[in-house]
């Protein structure tokens, strides 16, 4: 995978409406709909499907990025 954490972070930030998320980098603040949007975008951009348990096990966007990187074939 050649996308950096910075690009990943920008992608996530662009997906999440600040009206819903005070601190978008905290995964536990995402609503149910927002997690679907994020999972869909990760699949589209990284060809990785993140399960709900995997996403909820991440506390930050950085951790989520590392999880995605570990799943890239």
């Amino acid at each position, binding site marked *: 995978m050649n996308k950096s954490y910075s690009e990943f972070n920008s992608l996530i930030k662009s997906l999440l*409406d600040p*009206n819903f998320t005070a601190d978008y980098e905290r995964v536990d603040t995402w609503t*149910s*709909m927002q997690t679907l949007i994020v*999972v869909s975008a990760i*699949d589209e951009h990284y060809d990785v499907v993140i399960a709900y348990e995997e996403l909820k096990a991440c506390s930050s966007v950085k951790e989520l990025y590392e999880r995605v990187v570990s799943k890239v074939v």
Partner: protein
Amino acid sequence: MAQFSISNTRIAGISAALPKRAVSNRDLKGLSAQEIELLITTTGIENRRLADETTCASDLCLAAAEKLLSELNWNKEEIDVLIFVTQTPDFQVPGNSMLLQQKLELPTSCLAFDINQGCAGYVYGLSVISGLMSSSGMKKGLLLVGDTITKIIDKEDNSTTPIFSDAGSATAIEFSNDAKPMHFNLQTDGAKHDAITVEKGGARNPSKEDAYMTMHGHDIFAFGLKEVAPNIHALLEFCHTNKDRIDYFVFHQANRLLNESIRKKVGVDPEKVPTTIAKFGNTSCATIPVTIVSEIAERIKTKESQLVLSGFGVGLSWGSAMVNLDEIVCPELIEM
């Protein structure tokens, strides 16, 4: 591997019926205006159709079948088989197929049985009735596919209430030596059966109190992302064809975000993927025939068309079919 072809049967007609009663997701209780907006943007579902207390899937399918048989001008005495696909039968016993054999005034020589299937049910049902007719030589058959799924949803559950609608459909199948083969690719993963369940009201948990459908939306979403497009690609490979030779891809109408992801993975333009998710929501097993009748009826009535159908959901079950529609009968959508 359940990849197979069926010869000598063709779809002669498709009809569908919806309840007249429409409700808007903008009127949902317990959500803020912002949350509702995000829900509509993500799911794509603005309006849904709800059957009244006295209307069941059998009633919607009965109306669809009567209309279709009338327009086909079929003699009911000639119908050899009736299959009803539903998760919301009128009764535990007997099945809807027997009730409809009587209500449609079909002969007692007609074979009738039910299939308990969900959002993959149209594709599964089509494979069963076509395979049965092809191997037996039975001449005419009816596939009825419908659910009043909103009757088993907890109105307080905001993970299911904004998604589901009610609908019924009828598809007429006839034996024809000239028919182009139908092709199927069907799959199952029962290890994930708890992703969508109604745990109560069956023999395992007989209590009918709170016998509602529960859904783990994220698990279903991940399943759809992972499994549906590869299933369609495998079907196309099995058929020795490619996506450019397909006129329409009719997907189960799950939600906009998932369906758009699947469309992109399959690699087809939006013009080839008709949708009814905004106006009718997710009508369970009936979404595929409802979408065909609502969105592409004029085309398939007048011009031979090659379709890929893809259903996915409860089970987990998923499957796709490639079918040729050769100027079939397709009455206007019924609203009742």
